[in-house]
């Protein structure tokens, strides 16, 4: 009897996790997508007479203003456009490339495995900043290039993770039995192997989204991103650092935006991982 109540409690917790995660992520995404409607002009209007207003000091500026008198709330919401694009697209690209490479090299071993893994070793040996600076020097800045750079530097993580799992799974009997039946390789890779190793990939994905949102500001500082004046969460956060002692709100609100997004994605990722695992073993 108690076993069933624990199970019910667990189910309730899982549903709560999904609802909360969807609300947080969905809310942020909606705000960001409709930011132009909510704040025409994106809060770039400079008003030196209203410099560094504290939050709720004026109802026009609920999150306060920055040293140039721009509305922090409007800038944070508008800044989400760059941050979310970078965070989500770079991770999505890296996952697609990394997971496919990992599946192929782990399953087929041999020549392709060697090529992919030696390439990955070289990739891992290059310091990120060095790679970034070289990359900028050759192809120049811009949002697309930044996302490409992040994909190039991060697909290796997924490839190694997936390859390791494939090596552990490929000699398991259910893969052998699929081969014995004559199932095509492509189906073995994507119908049998992928669902069984997706758990850790989802965890790594949620971690990397947060990481990449922050990396965007460093890269913008190096001159790789969009125009440094275009707001982004990482950028606003970095700008506000100098005023942290007397105007905490400039940095704290973009930080909160990142926190809420990442929290939402983590909850969703957790829920997704558990709902993909019919045994529910990973969560208990």
């Amino acid at each position, binding site marked *: *009897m*108690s076993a069933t109540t624990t199970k019910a409690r667990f189910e309730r917790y899982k549903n709560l996790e999904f609802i909360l995660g969807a609300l947080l992520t969905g809310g942020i995404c909606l705000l960001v997508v409709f930011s132009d409607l909510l704040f025409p002009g994106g809060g770039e209007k400079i008003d030196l007479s209203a410099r560094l207003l504290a939050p709720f000091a004026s109802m026009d500026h609920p999150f306060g203003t920055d040293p140039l008198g721009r509305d922090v709330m409007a800038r944070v919401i508008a800044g989400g456009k760059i941050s979310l694009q970078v965070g989500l697209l770079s991770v999505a690209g890296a996952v697609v490339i990394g997971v496919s490479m990992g599946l192929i090299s782990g399953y087929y071993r041999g020549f392709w495995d060697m090529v992919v893994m030696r390439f990955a070793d070289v990739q891992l040996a290059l310091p990120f900043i060095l790679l970034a600076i070289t990359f900028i020097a050759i192809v120049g800045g811009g949002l697309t290039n930044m996302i490409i750079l992040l994909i190039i530097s991060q697909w290796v993580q997924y490839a190694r993770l997936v390859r390791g799992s494939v090596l552990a799974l490929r000699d398991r*009997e*259910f893969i052998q*039995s*699929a081969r014995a039946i*004559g*199932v095509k390789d492509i189906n073995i890779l994507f119908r*049998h192997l992928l669902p069984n190793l997706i758990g850790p990939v989802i965890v790594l994905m949620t971690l990397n989204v947060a990481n990449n949102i922050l990396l965007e500001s460093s890269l913008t500082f190096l001159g790789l991103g969009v125009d440094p004046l275009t707001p982004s969460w990482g950028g606003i956060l970095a700008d506000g650092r100098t005023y942290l002692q007397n105007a905490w709100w400039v940095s704290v609100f973009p930080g909160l935006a990142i926190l809420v997004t990442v929290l939402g994605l983590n909850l969703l990722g957790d829920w997704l991982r558990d709902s993909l695992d019919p045994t529910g073993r990973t969560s208990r």
Partner: protein
Amino acid sequence: MTDILSAPILTVEDLSVEFGATRVIENLNFSVAPGKTLAIVGESGSGKSVTSLSIMRLAETMGASYPSGKIIFSGPDGETDLLSASQKQMRAIRGKDIAMIFQEPMMSLNPVFTIGDQIAESLILHEGMRKADALIEGKRLLEMVRLPDAGELLARYPHQLSGGMRQRVMIAMAMACRPKVLIADEPTTALDVTIQAQILTIIRDLQEELGMAVIFITHDMGVVAEIADDVVVMWKGKKVEQGPVKELFANPQHPYTQTLLSSVPKLGSMAGEPFPKRFPIMLMEGGVPRLVGSEHIQNTARYDEAPLLSVRDLVTRFDIKKGFFGGVTHRVHAAENVSFDIYRGETLALVGESGSGKSTIGRTIQQLQRATSGNITFDGRSLSSMNRSDQQRLRQEIQYIFQDPFASLDPRKKIGFSIAEPIRTHHLINSEKQIRIRVDQLLERVGLTSEHANRYPHEFSGGQRQRICIARALASNPKLIIADEALSALDVSIQAQIINLFMELQEEQGLAYLFISHDMAVVEQMSHRVAVLYLGQIAELGTRQQVLETPTHAYTQRLLSAVPVADPTLVRNHAMLKGEIPSPIRRVGDEPAILNRQEIAPGHFVAQAC
């Protein structure tokens, strides 16, 4: 009764164990006297392992609690109730007074320490010995369990030893402090029969020498008959019967014990029968035993037709141990010049111990493994001359059933998907609706219901999972099914049902089976012909009667004599069972001698002595 020798050393009184609110053991009572062996038998989930872990007080780390009961240990300094002892007191008792050996010796040995370090550890801890003395004592202990070159073994690591040697090291470690009680939890289940016989002899000899009490936990009634003085039968957490071994086997009282004993196939019980046979089985239904099925002679083999599968001079080798410059220095000679035929409706059993190459042969036929040389012909077509689509068709006509049904089903897929997979892969049925109907039919054929299709593998019991694997194999209308130890992971009562299912299907659909097994008693019941493999070569091949009743090759005789038989009245002689199973790994260039086979009777081939 009051005799000091027969006074029990360990008494379990009214023991109940709970995990959360689930009671796994209820009011268990038994006792064991010094120098005696008590066997606790039961099927998976009967609570026998929890009992042993409770005596060691290790069950608590897994979340167990004890609502009632006492475990009295009568040590040299009075009686102790182990259940009320502190974990600190228990640490002094564990390993010193009560020692335990487990099923999987590789798991119980730490892979990064040498054998010597691990034996010395408990001597240093409990006996306060110095390291050098402990190592000398360790060597003596290894000699006691009859390990050759004990001195050198001390410096080796666990992975350098074979399974049987590791289990002997475990026993030596358990003996280190001369325990009063030895708990052996399925110690021979993972071992080959000849090695199992050696281990049982060692445990029995040590018991006589040291006068220990042994609690032997097993599911194998054959082993019980060999080693036990008294038997406790457990079922669903309760003791259903207890008694001296001969009485219990001769006259089982409880219906569960009766069903358990009736499901055990006994080697030699089919002497004189020319064909394999289906037997009725006793099932427990709501606590009442019921007889299901009837005796039926399995005369299905079509020897009048051309053979379905012909294997000729099959050689399969694996390269291992690459040298410094990438050259191959050693090879596993898994199969050497293996030739046999299988006819429609026939069951050919491949028997042998680990390393004999029996699985490799099955895997080569299934194209999971490439043959080094030789020829395989299926249904008149030669495998080597087949193009891709022919090879794919072969994967439809030959199906493979693995040992562990849980591991061979994708844990993330509903079983309906898994059963339909061969149908979809080979485009046997195209409409989704028809596929669903076919899956339901298959499920019902193997004794499940159509609603099971929407469940995941972990929601089934072991026996049900093997039924699912059989349904999956049947889905593609195969002509040959290769069953690789398909019964060895199952409890005996389930095993008996699956044997009957296999035989019914054979009669219905004219299936041929290549039955790979190490269990001679099951082989005797199921197969028409038997091939005995030794180091990748066929040592003896003939009809079931020829091989099992008149074994001619020395290895067949040795194998048969090692099989434990569930009959405690049998007097047995294990004197001929010595030595390890030789390894099939050889240096490059050091080819094994190909044995010549002689036909000593029509269809009975025996290799010359090696």
